[in-house]
């Protein structure tokens, strides 16, 4: 399966289609950190929010680079389960690349202040940032997979799924939302990082994000059975 993951990552990187989401991500980060110095942990929470749609879009592009028939050839070669897993794993790896850029970016451009008294240390802030971004990444990969051409079959529907997913995540993630559980806890994580983060909240947010991604990916796997 790792050979198929490498093949798909290579296809994604070689076509240059990886550039568009990367530039969009850098632009969003540039705007985010352009306004002055922020507390690192809090800034990372917001960074994960703005990167959520970018990561979903990147996943959709990665899964769609491969022609439909090639995807079916891969399925014949390794079987349906590993074919799906290889695509998702490639998307997660590509997403981790973007996340690492997002973690390093504010330190390079001076977008974050050195931790003051009472703040988590720089290393702790980085760890919290990684956690927040991974919590955004897994649901983003699931959303991107649901928007991929294998399922939506047309670029228009794909964009619609991405847009509804991203806007819904923001709209239903606001404080006082009527149905926060319908969407991944991207905004809730950002709010939690703005204050002190109790361990119980961190666990709850992790479980929530994993459960959301799990349900979405189960739907993806199930739907792919009739749309190879």
């Amino acid at each position, binding site marked *: 399966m790792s050979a198929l993951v490498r093949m798909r990552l290579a296809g994604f990187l070689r076509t240059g289609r990886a550039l568009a989401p990367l530039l969009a991500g850098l632009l969003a980060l540039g705007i985010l950190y352009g306004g002055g110095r922020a507390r690192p942990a809090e800034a990372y929470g917001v960074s994960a929010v703005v990167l959520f749609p970018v990561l979903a879009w990147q996943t959709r592009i990665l899964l769609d680079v491969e022609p439909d028939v090639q995807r079916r050839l891969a399925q014949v070669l390794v*079987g349906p389960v590993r074919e799906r897993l290889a695509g998702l794993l490639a998307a997660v790896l590509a997403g981790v690349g973007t996340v690492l850029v997002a973690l390093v970016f504010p330190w390079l451009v001076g977008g974050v202040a050195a931790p003051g008294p009472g703040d988590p240390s720089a290393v702790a802030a980085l760890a919290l940032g990684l956690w927040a971004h991974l919590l955004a990444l897994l649901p983003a990969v699931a959303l991107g997979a649901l928007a991929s051409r294998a399922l939506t079959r047309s670029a228009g529907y794909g964009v619609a799924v991405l847009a509804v997913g991203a806007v819904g995540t923001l709209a239903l993630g606001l404080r006082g939302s009527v149905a926060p559980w319908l969407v991944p806890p991207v905004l809730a994580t950002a709010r939690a990082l703005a204050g002190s983060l109790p361990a119980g909240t961190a666990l709850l947010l992790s479980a929530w994000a994993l459960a959301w991604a799990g349900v979405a990916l189960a739907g993806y796997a199930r739907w792919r059975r009739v749309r*190879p």
Partner: protein
Amino acid sequence: MRLEDVRLRYRRGGPWVLRGVTARLDPGEVAVVLGRNGAGKSTLLQLCAGVLRPVRGRVVDRPHRVGWVPERFPADQPFTVTRYLTAMGRAAGLGRADADRAVDRWTDRLGLAPFRTVRMPDLSKGTAQKVGLAQAMLRTPGLLVLDEPWEGLDAAARGLVPELVDEVLTAGGAVLVSDHRGETVRLPGARHWTVADGLLTDEPATGDAAVAVVEVAVPAARVAGTVARLRADGHQILRVREPAVPPTRAAAPPAPVPPAGAGPTGDPTRDGRAGEVAW
């Protein structure tokens, strides 16, 4: 491999493309799938290859290694021929050295050697089709599924397809080929699967296609019984030759073939005109 009452439609409420197909393909057998355009040949092939799942019914005993050559090879990929084939070989589970060897072997055999460093989108249709053949053969498949394999190939390359088919059959695999241009004559001894109105008609290999002649020696006392049994098995007795001199084992031992194996199932490349049955 067996198809058991397989039904398939592409969307709920849509028309059934296949409605109750039952068929069986044993190792060492080749079947040609015939039918007019849109009859469901490609659908049937993709079901057998494991690309599509039946909506009802099931496909059982599909060999573990399947090679599928799609009707149109997807050449729009950012790899060179070598890189693509190596990656496919590795994905198929070959080790690095084995994958390299398999790629060398198949690019040579299919005449792809001059194109190995060419990027796939720059290939001609026929050359891309050969890459499609190569990827299916990198590890010898237990089931080879060829969707219109002759399409786009030049006259010289068309002869390659029966060679690949033979190779898979020799290794104990089964082969499914679709064809709408009458190239089927290149595959003597193939079953004919005709798809029409969502149903499949299975005709066994026609006898006139290829006949091999096996000479069998039996004790003179058992000639009548053996001839009767061979005829009952559907074999054609061309001639019974009375030996002038009883054959001695030391002088000229003809390789004894058991009577059950005699008949038109031997080497399909041999021509059967000069045959006879000797006793």
